[in-house]
């Protein structure tokens, strides 16, 4: 196989993650009404993050609720200048992660009902051209479940790094800010996470890049 890295890079869609959203100006966020806009804007993103971290929908919803309530309380106690300097998106991720850690502390590693995670509707919605065939859905769903399961097998700090980097599409400096870690540590955690996932998912991953089309199969 002579697939060179640059070719591979061109043919493989780049990891995009969620599109960057311009941060909400925090001047007006102190009141509960404007805080509702913050909740509306970030709830989906934080829910996704919490779900990837816990593997459980109920936990994820409760974590997000708890995180927003904490954020609201903290904003109320902040001086106006502190609030003006706050970068809300990384700050909300940090709070969500802290709540997640507290919640999962002392729990045994999750035995996830993976059916509850992989969502056929979401796959359907994500399809670009026409409705996919039922067998495609089943196949894709199985693959998604496999990746989700692998992610949940990572230790918490590696899972957080990999989720923020590849699923949430955050940059290294942003992740460093969220995790309160040096950038070097973040990079190393991201890398270690990928190594472990590579081992869990098997070496066949990334092998099925064929001429003219990009197809990623996990099986």
């Amino acid at each position, binding site marked *: 196989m002579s697939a060179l890295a640059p070719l591979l890079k061109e043919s493989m869609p780049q990891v995009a993650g969620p599109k960057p959203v311009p941060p909400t100006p925090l001047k007006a966020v102190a009141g509960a009404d404007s*805080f509702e806009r913050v909740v509306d804007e970030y709830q989906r993103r934080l829910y996704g993050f919490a779900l990837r971290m816990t593997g459980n929908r109920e936990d994820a919803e409760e974590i997000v609720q708890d995180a927003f309530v904490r954020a609201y309380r903290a904003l109320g106690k902040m001086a106006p200048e502190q609030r003006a300097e706050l970068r809300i998106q990384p700050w909300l991720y940090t709070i969500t992660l802290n709540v997640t850690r507290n919640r999962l502390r002392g729990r045994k590693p999750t035995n996830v009902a993976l059916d509850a995670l992989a969502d056929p509707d979401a796959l359907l919605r994500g399809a670009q051209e026409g409705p996919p065939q039922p067998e495609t859905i089943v196949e894709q769903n199985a693959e998604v479940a496999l990746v989700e399961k692998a992610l949940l097998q990572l230790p918490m700090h590696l899972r957080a790094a990999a989720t923020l980097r590849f699923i949430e599409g955050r940059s290294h400096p942003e992740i460093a800010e969220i995790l309160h870690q040096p950038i070097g540590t973040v990079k190393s955690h991201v890398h270690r996470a990928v190594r472990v996932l590579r081992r869990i998912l098997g070496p066949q991953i990334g092998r099925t890049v064929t001429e003219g089309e990009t197809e990623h199969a996990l099986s």
Partner: protein
Amino acid sequence: MRCRDVEAMWDEIRGHCTASVRDAVDGHLRACPHCQDLYEQFEGVAYCLSCLPQPEPSCDLTKKVVEHIALIKDRVRPEPIVLTSVQTPLGTLFVGFKEQRIAYVGIDAGGDIEAVRSQIEHRLRRPVVAGEPPEWLRATLDDFFRTWVVDESSVDLSDLTEFEQAALRATAQIPPGEVRSYSWVADRIGKPRAARAVGRAMARNPVPLLYPCHRVVNAAGDLHNYGYGLEMKARILRMEGHNRGS
């Protein structure tokens, strides 16, 4: 460039990086099939993660959060404590009350009322407003200094933790003029190992005298400690008929 150095850069070249870094990594990958293989796997993992579907929270999540916050908003404007001062056989007492129940008692030790106000705000997390002593308050305190027994229905402990409430209620079982140890209180509330925590609860008692933390002493029978000094502790005990020790 060594394989290990290049591997460390894989994640870098996915984002913005200098052309020279990119060239160096590409050059190495072209020449090293082993790294090429691993790089493909790395990209494969990253790609798989990025392709996970964006999960949707339930449609009423925002509503739930907003409702939760509305509840807090009601709580952050708590009813204020009315602060007043009353003359008693022990001297001037600062008394804070709300809804016809006493929530704070402080012996006037010569400090200014602002310090008392901030102490109440800090301890009970409620705003404080100044007021005149109502008739029911004078009557309650007159009764107390006559009998040295608290009418528990006239005291509000609701801003305290359950443990603190239980410990203080246990002190009200100690007859006037008698003393008991911290561990006695701990036993009494079913937490026999929590004698030190009882000590902390006594130290934080916002309604001293009425809930008689002054009747709680150490295991050796020494007065041990008191927020207003051991002299005051001994004086109160003497006033209510304590004859032994100091």
